[in-house]
Structures are given as C-alpha cells and as structure tokens.
C-alpha cells in the first residue's frame, strides 16, 4: 500500500480545504458554486454511465443492478441494527441508515481518480450501480421510519402522510436521482457524434471540476468537526465502523458475485463504504423530519467522507488487490 498513490489532485485538494478550515483560514467558497459543481458532477457521472451502458453486456449489467439493489437495501438494515444497539432512537437510526445505503459521489470519483493515477483498469458497471443505489436507500430509510413510527406510535401524522405512493414518488423524483438517470438516458439515447459536442464540457473538464468540488467538501468536512460533541462518541465511532462493514460487503460482492478485477472490486467496495451527503439529506429532511439533520450530516460529511478519502480508499484497494490476486 504505497501512500504516494494518495498524491492525486482530488485527494490533495480535499486535504487543502480541510486544512484551510482547520487553521481557521478566511478562505470562503460561494455556496452556489458548491451546488453548481454537484449538479455538474452528477450529470457527468450519469452521462458516463449511459455511454457505458450502451456498450454493456446485458447479463452482466443485470447482475450489477441486482448487486446494487442488495447493497442499497441491505446496508441500511445492518446500519439500523447497529444504531439501535447503540441506543440511538429509531427515527434518527432510520435516517442515518438511509445515508449508508446510498453513495458519496465525491468519494466514488476520488476512487476513480486514484485508479486512473495508477493506470489500473476498472469495470464500468459500478457507475451504473451508483445511480441505482440512491433510490433503494431512500426507500428503505422511509420504510424503517414508518416501521419505527408504528411501533412507537410516535407521530400518527407523519406515518399517515408517508403512504407508500408518496414514498416511492419521493425516492424517484429526488433531484440527484433525476440528474443521474436523466443524464444516463441522454448518454444512452444520443448518438456518439452528437455526444461529442458536450464531451469537452462534461467529460474533459470532469477531474478538474471534481478537484474544485473536493476543495470545498474538505472545508465542509472540517467544519463538521465542531459538531462531534453534539453527535456523541458512539456515532463518531459508527461513522468509521460502518464504512468498514460496507466496504467489506462491497469487496465480497464485487469479487465473489460480480467477478470484477482489482479496480472494479475497489469501486464496489467504495459504493458499499461511502455515505451520501448530496441526495439523501434533503430526502430525509422531508421524509423523517423528526430525525436531527445534525446527526446524519455530521456522520456522512464529517466522519465517513474524510475517513474514506484518506484511509478507506487505499485500504479497500489493498484488500481488493489481495482478493483478486492482482
């Protein structure tokens, strides 16, 4: 595990943002720029996914989608059980759990940059899996909340409002889901010569824009450290434990089920290990208002995200290489 592999722009800019905030620099990022970059990155991933899907083998793609569903539905349940064991109340547990079934696009893209820097090949199915995993994670979060409310008889009104129809609707009209899927359809439907006209924008610039986004996300992650006290020791530990569990699940699924190589297995591990901070928090705001956003944002943005970028990716890579014998 050669640490010099971490010397890639994405990771270094993340570290720079983290450091700037940690030393209380007056560096400021306009809020709209972060939002613009996240829209851009989601479209970029979606387009890439769509282009890959066009060339994909149907059988393999189906397997990948099935695996994505299993991870997206299964990991939140694991997370929920652990959180309850740690005496987190059920609604907060539901909301947090949903984040771990989904994926952090920033972490995933850092892993791709990391592989590219070492010229390691990777399967492209994980790109499609990323898009797939958002919705199940949101749905399972809502189901857990519903179940929690039922058993707690805590808030009849929320339970009523969230009937199954609404619930599915919200999961599929989520802004990030629509960008990912919409762009995927564009990537699939448009003929290559026409796609070429937008490739300089959405493709060629992608890694640079990612660096700028990670600079800002480094600052955001660092700001969240001040919230650790509020969140408590158990949750901070959970924010490191859960990516290890999700990463292990991803490694196993990527290798034994999907039969990917070193690169692909790493990417599936990152799908499992990472927690959403773009798509899922707004969904939970609406669907589980009783949960405290401070908990799930601090965990996904302030704990799991930096852990994965700095420690997780090289660790999962080391394990993926061992597993696949690369």
């Amino acid at each position, binding site marked *: 595990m050669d640490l010099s592999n971490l010397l890639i722009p994405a990771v270094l800019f993340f570290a720079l943002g983290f450091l700037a905030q940690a030393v209380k620099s007056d560096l400021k*990022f306009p*809020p709209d720029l*972060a*939002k613009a970059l*996240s829209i851009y990155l989601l479209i970029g991933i979606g387009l890439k996914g769509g282009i890959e899907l066009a060339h994909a083998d149907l059988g393999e793609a189906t397997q990948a989608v099935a695996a994505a569903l299993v991870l997206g539905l299964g990991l939140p349940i694991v997370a929920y059980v652990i959180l309850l064991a740690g005496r987190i109340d059920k*609604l907060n547990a539901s909301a947090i759990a949903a984040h771990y079934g989904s994926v952090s696009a920033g972490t995933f893209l850092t892993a791709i940059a990391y592989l590219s820097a070492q010229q390691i090949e990777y399967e492209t199915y994980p790109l499609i899996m990323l898009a797939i995993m958002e919705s199940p994670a949101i749905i399972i979060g809502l189901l857990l909340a519903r179940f929690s409310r039922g058993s707690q008889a805590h*808030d009849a*009104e*929320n339970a009523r*409002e969230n009937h199954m129809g609404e619930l599915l609707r919200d999961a599929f009209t989520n*802004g990030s889901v629509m960008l990912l899927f919409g762009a995927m359809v564009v990537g699939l439907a448009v003929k290559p010569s026409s796609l070429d006209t937008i490739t300089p924008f959405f493709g060629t610039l992608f890694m640079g824009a990612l660096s700028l986004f990670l600079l*800002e*996300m480094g600052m*955001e992650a660092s*700001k*969240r450290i*001040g*919230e650790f006290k*509020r969140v408590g020791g158990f949750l901070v530990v959970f924010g490191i434990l859960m990516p290890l569990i999700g990463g292990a699940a991803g490694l196993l699924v990527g290798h034994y089920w999907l039969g990917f190589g070193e690169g692909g297995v790493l990417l599936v591990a990152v799908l499992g290990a990472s927690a959403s*901070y*773009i798509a*899922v*928090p*707004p969904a*939970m*705001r*609406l669907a*589980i*208002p*009783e*949960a*405290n*956003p*401070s*908990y799930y*944002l*601090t965990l996904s943005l302030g704990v799991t995200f930096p852990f994965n970028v700095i420690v997780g990716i090289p660790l999962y890579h080391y394990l993926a290489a061992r597993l696949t014998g690369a």
Partner: protein
Amino acid sequence: MPPLYPMKLINIVANITLEERLVDIAEAHEASGYTVLDARGAGSAGLQTGALDGESNILFLLLVPESKLDQVLADVEKLMKRGHHLATFVSDTQVLRREKFD
C-alpha cells in the same frame, strides 16, 4: 405623505427543502405573494453552511393582514409538530397600499 397600514410580517427560517411546503401554505391562505431569501446559519438542527441542499436555509417572508395570522401560524405549527426545524417569528409592520396584501 402616502398612508401606511398595519400588517403582520411572518418570518420563517427553514431548510430549503421546505420551500414548496411554505409556498403551499401561503397559497392556501391566499396571501398576495411571498418572498424567499437564501440563508445559512446554525441552530438545534446543527450547522447550515449553504453548500449542499441538505444544509441550506431560506428566510421565508410573508406579509398578511392580522386576520389571517392565526390560520397561517397554525399551519406552520403543524410542520413544527411533524418535527421540522423552523425558527418562526412575527413582527408588526406597516405597508404602502393595503389593497395589495389583503
């Protein structure tokens, strides 16, 4: 001097995902309009830096005649009962052209 008429200004600080719900409340009570400003901040729901939708606030402003105040606040209170994190405060103000806001 142009005359001024008393009116209530309802101020709500909320996460941006609640914007549509607040607009619905304004429309349900036939307010003449509403105003929204992007904001950041902190409160019991933690730090809201404005960088991502999940951590972005808005300041929602609603001018209503006193007669509508209670009904609007009752709806806002419903959102708070469901668990949403809102900071709601009401001020006395005076408007030019009452007929615009009735």
